[in-house]
């Protein structure tokens, strides 16, 4: 088990402050956060590439702080495609095994197996510069998994690949990561879908803090704060100001119909989270289109209501023009309620 106890770092662009987490063997932890949230800094601190300024980092109860990088039994895949330019693909993958003291023959044998696994059989003799970006990253992944490290760190490994390759490699990841099934895998990403799809557990980071951790579906269903809600879906959950008046939820001048499932708190101000799929075209709420964009087979429509702006996800491809007036309906059962401080206060009757 890898334990972060009050872990803090200094000196880099994004210092980490007081991170606590227990990461168990055999699990994949996805770290979700925007660019600059501190994901890379966390991975670098765990790896020993950056110094820890406070707190502890323990692996199976042993302090890691004094252990040099090379003895941490970890491997890493960077966002950039980092391979050894002077070595062939086979020697690249065999490199860590050779450093472990394996004979050239044994190391090559295991490297070949790893290369076959990542779909690069037949490329052993090439130089990294002769490969495409996707293939280079596969070499890096092969080198990371061939070690069967205790801890495998992946820092946005798909970020520099084009859409198609990203999708393809993401589909292959569960199979590839199964090679490290006994280890702890930390996988950072900016994409909510990737984090939820790959992670046994998800860690949500923002500005150097851990905002939430737990099973992805739990965090998705009940994000603990406004910030978490904004991060866990793409398109994001829209946050608007509202109030509870006489047991009814009011957004601006709009009084929302009561919902049997959503238990409203006492009268007062609240922040309301509207999931993109809670809005649909056709209904009694007037809205103005700001922008519409296509994402795969869906249309993402940015609209403004009299009470604020929101993002709507419409299935299928639809034409919307800016300033177009449309009528929208809202499924109030999936609304999220937050206190003025941003803490989740949503209660559902079905929960209890």
């Amino acid at each position: 088990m890898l334990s972060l106890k009050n872990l803090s770092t200094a000196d880099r662009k994004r210092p980490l402050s007081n991170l606590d987490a227990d990461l168990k063997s055999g699990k994949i932890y996805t770290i979700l956060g925007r660019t600059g949230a501190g994901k890379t800094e966390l991975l670098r601190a765990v790896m020993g590439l950056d110094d820890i300024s406070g707190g502890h980092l323990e692996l199976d109860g042993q302090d890691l702080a004094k252990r040099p990088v090379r003895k941490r039994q970890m491997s890493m895949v960077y966002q950039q495609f980092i391979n050894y330019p002077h070595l062939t693909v086979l020697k690249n993958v065999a490199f860590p095994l050779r450093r472990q003291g394996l004979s050239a023959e044994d190391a090559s044998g295991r490297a070949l197996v790893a290369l076959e696994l990542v779909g690069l059989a037949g490329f052993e003799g090439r130089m990294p510069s002769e490969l495409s970006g996707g293939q280079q990253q596969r070499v890096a992944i092969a080198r990371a998994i061939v070690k069967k490290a205790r801890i495998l760190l992946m820092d946005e490994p798909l970020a520099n690949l084009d859409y198609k390759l990203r999708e393809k490699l993401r589909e292959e990841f569960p199979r590839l990561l199964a090679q490290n099934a006994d280890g702890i895998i930390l996988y950072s990403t900016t994409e909510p879908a990737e984090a939820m799809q790959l992670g046994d557990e998800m860690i949500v980071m923002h500005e150097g803090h851990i905002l939430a951790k737990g099973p992805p579906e739990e965090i998705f269903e009940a994000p603990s704060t406004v910030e978490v809600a904004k991060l866990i879906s793409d398109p994001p959950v829209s946050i608007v100001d509202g109030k509870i008046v006489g047991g009814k939820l009011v957004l601006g001048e709009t009084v929302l119909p009561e919902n049997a499932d959503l238990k409203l708190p006492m009268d007062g101000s609240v922040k309301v989270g509207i999931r993109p799929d809670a809005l649909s075209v056709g209904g009694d709420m007037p809205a103005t289109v700001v922008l519409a964009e296509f994402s795969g087979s869906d249309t993402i429509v940015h609209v403004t209501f009299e009470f604020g702006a929101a993002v709507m996800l419409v299935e299928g491809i639809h034409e919307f023009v800016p300033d177009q007036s449309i009528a929208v309906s809202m499924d109030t059962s999936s609304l999220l309620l937050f206190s003025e401080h941003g803490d989740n206060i949503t209660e559902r009757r079905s929960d209890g």
Partner: protein
Amino acid sequence: MSRTYNIIKYICLLTWAAFVVFPFLWALSTSFKDANAVTSGARYIPWVEFEPSLQGWTSLFASGSQGINIVTPFMNSASVTLLASIVSLSLGTLAAYGLSRFSYKAGFIKNADITFFFISQRIMPPIVLAIPFFLMLKEIQALDTILGLVIVYVALLLPIAVWVMTDFFASIPKELDEMAMIDGCTPIGAFFRVILPNSTAGLVVAGMFCLIFGWNDFFFAFILTFTETQLLPVAIVSLNSSVTPWWSLSAFALISVTPLALIAIFVERFMSRGSLAGAFR
């Protein structure tokens, strides 16, 4: 591109080529002339305008009043330049790697100051260094010796090596060093196993600069040697007596420029490969 552009381009290139090549042709033709042919006006084509003579070339391998023996100064220059370049490149590469990868701090002195300290050695006019060098070499009885010159040349070439290599290492992503350490290398292992093998282009450029500056230096070679250890540039000057032997000087100049010309051809081919291109993204 238009025809006019091409014509202008070739005119410019040919003019420039003439500027570069002509002195060599002049030296080549002069080296085969005798006193008469040199002093009797502009003549360039052998057997037609003048009768070629081997006097210029043979005098370089004679001795005493017949000329000067070029072999010893050539070997001296080669040994001093090679030794000093190898030492400078080795020390300079290590220093540059340290400066590009680790942060040093001693009071107000930081990495940038140390780098500037190296480079500042080249800012000083050589004459400022000449007297201290002379006194120091005298003290250790290394005046007029190969060893003494190597020591001085290392001091002169080291800044160049540090400068070029610091710049080069800065272009190699630090992630490559980190990867090597993650994969089980010590910091020194990462340097020798991963960074150095990927630094050939930088080493070649730095090495070339060291060789050029070392080979061409006249000033220190002139001041710090007398008769025992003569280097090539000094030997050329000593040819110059009451009558300037243009034929010998030309032959001498051609011989002394040959090693550098060969290096330039080799390096040009090497550098065009761009060994790091496409390796990182």
